[in-house]
């Protein structure tokens, strides 16, 4: 892109806009961090600087990790297990299907039709399948088991996995694989030895993205989880109780849910937009 000439005033205006936008974006998180170190009265005051404006306390964090510690840790463990397992399935099925759609030609149904059909599975609102899922898991005796939630989250993320992997494989030069065939490599061999390693960044992106989405998912856990299988979002939702407005609890509980995924997201920042647009926009 060409470098446009801007006057000094133009730059200042630009930076003011950027600053406003940045503050607006980050303020809620900042405020949560501040609130999580406050207690009772302080939490309702618009004060920002610890020690100077208010006396910081670990009350909120104490609640999260000690008072409700068992519950927090259990749901953290569940969140990690569920998100990593469902992302692994997404990655496996997605990479295979993506490769197949990117490299081979289907005739009865066109590649494009299959891809769009897969995509259409992402369109339906999750509530549309809540009732049958509930009944299905009941029949399978899987209610309140992490497996039920893993299965559900996999459905939600699989279209993303297929489309992204398809997109990544298309970007790879075909010559390398063709060369491998000529050297006597089988298709499986070419896939595992050539294509997969080359698509490694894509694999990581798919895994991390679907991990994030599974971590954040709320409604399926709300319905299918119970006690053993609850994840972090459910614990966050339970932070506001009948006992009054305990903002410090809400803030620290929410941060437990926010921090891990934000850190993960920075690792795949290059692919986040690409992932969210299912490969349509290469960010």
């Amino acid at each position, binding site marked *: 892109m060409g470098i446009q000439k801007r006057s000094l005033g133009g730059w200042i205006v630009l930076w003011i806009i950027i600053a406003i936008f940045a503050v607006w974006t980050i303020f809620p998180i900042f405020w949560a961090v501040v609130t999580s170190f406050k207690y*009772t009265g302080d939490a309702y005051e618009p004060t920002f600087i610890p020690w100077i404006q208010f006396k910081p306390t670990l009350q909120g964090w104490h609640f999260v990790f000690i008072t409700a510690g068992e519950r927090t840790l259990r749901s953290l463990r569940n969140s990690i297990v569920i998100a990593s397992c469902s992302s692994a399935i997404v990655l496996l099925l997605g990479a295979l299907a993506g490769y197949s759609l990117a490299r081979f030609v289907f005739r009865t149904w066109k590649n494009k039709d299959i891809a769009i059909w897969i995509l259409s599975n992402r369109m339906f609102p999750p509530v549309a399948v809540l009732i049958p899922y509930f009944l299905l898991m009941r029949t399978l005796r899987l209610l309140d088991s992490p497996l039920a939630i893993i299965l559900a989250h996999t459905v939600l993320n699989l279209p993303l996995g297929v489309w992204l992997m398809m997109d990544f494989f298309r970007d790879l030069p075909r010559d390398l694989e063709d060369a491998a065939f000529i050297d006597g490599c089988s298709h499986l061999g070419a896939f595992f030895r050539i294509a997969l390693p080359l698509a490694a960044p894509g694999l990581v992106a798919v895994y991390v993205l679907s991990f994030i989405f599974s971590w954040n998912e709320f409604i399926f856990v709300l319905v299918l989880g*119970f006690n053993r299988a609850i994840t972090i979002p*459910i614990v966050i939702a*339970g932070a506001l109780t009948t006992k009054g407005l305990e903002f410090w609890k809400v803030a620290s509980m929410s941060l437990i849910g926010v921090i891990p995924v934000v850190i993960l997201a920075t690792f795949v920042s290059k692919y986040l937009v690409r992932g969210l647009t299912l490969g349509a926009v290469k960010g």
Partner: protein
Amino acid sequence: MRKKLILVFLTVFCFLIPMALLASGGSVDFKGRTLSILVNDTHVQVVDAWKPLWERETGGRINVILVPYVGLGDKMWIEFRTKTGTFDTAAIPSTWLGDVAGGGHVVKLDPLFEKYGYPDWDDILPAIQTICKWAGETVAFPYDGDCHMTYYRKDALEVPEYQQKFRQKYGYDYHMPPKDWDEVRDISEFFDRWDWDKDGEINYGVAFIAQQKTQAQWEVLNIIAQYATKAGPPTNTTSNIFFNTDTMEPLCNTPGWIEAFRTIQELTEFAPPGLLGYGYSEFRYAYVSGLAGLGFDWGDVGIMEQYPDEYGSKVKGKLGYGPLPGAKKYWDHLNEKWVYEDHQVNFLNFGGWVWIIPKSAKNVDMAYNWVVYITNPERSLLDACGIHGYTGVNPFRKSHFDPAVIGLWERGGWDSNAVIGYQKAIMDILTDPYAVTDLRIPGGERYYDALDYHLAEVLAGITTPEKACAALYDDWVRITNEYGKESQKRYYRQSLGLK
């Protein structure tokens, strides 16, 4: 005085604690077994308090399944439908018993009472005995006595100067607590938007729960109970506010209901600006921080009043307590006319929490032992009187009101005068044999959700009471038809104790 109090207190303590230990000690052995209990966050404090003691005494272990209030119903129904035995007992609102007991999902308790014995059943207040029964059988354990009561600020209503000004403006003397909803209206208007407690902040007339999907419907039912019926043994016309017991026609489109909706809509004008955002937590926070003159809530405000540090109470010792206000008239729906008569109806709002044992429970004996253990007179008193802080448990036994145990209430942070007023207010409601009970038929939650839905529009002032009541009528007719009119009528009559 002080010496005497200490003496009473000591006697009570020396006497009660060993008795408590004796009452249940040693007779059972649950070694190696685990009891699963389902509670929501409000009651976990009670469970945490007694769990170690119970585990030590019986040798059993307890697995607590903690869910937020919003998830409690869902989780309970999952168990009823799947019958996997995820929990052995649960604390639920008694107003759900229509679906729960009506659907036959819980163990009937009368045989268990005979088998294991239930000490002091007669100690339970009559109203609470009623709500634990469904269609004549005991299906739940009493645990909590819930009823709405009137709270008022003594530092506003008792000031002679204000009383005189009020008389000049309205031409009569108000009662403390207010006698009927007309008085409530005038008092709210009079004490609205000026600093009557002289703390530099504007005060408002009245506050109540008004946020959607919390518990706003009970606030309007307080008023409906006064305008739609009068106290008496439950029949079609007395102590019956929801349906015509002969035809199962909803009564919610009658002038009595419309009058109540109009009243509550008017009250919103004298309430703090954040009113529509008041769920139970917001309301209680606002009220004990001294924002409003009048408030209508369960006994919990009284407990929170005593704790300036934990719940930010600025009104310790400044609250007066009373029963719900009455009305000057009520609608006789059979003869379709207003009957002008000063009267007051008590309403068992929400009806209190109860413990139930699902049919699929794996450890019925343990569940029984646990519930009887925590709800026995001595232990439940500690939960109700404030010693355990805010537990969500309000008094439900006669012995909780015994003058002999007032020392414990004081240890819970109460002033001795305050506790007498508080106890009297609750006692009067819970001993009333003609108190109106909550709607307890299948689909109860849906009827109430529809009420909440239309009430919300009235509170926000975007529809008229007449329109809201007509729309509510349509909704209720539809729900009734969906569940079957005849069976609903049968259930409703049963819930009132009619043949």
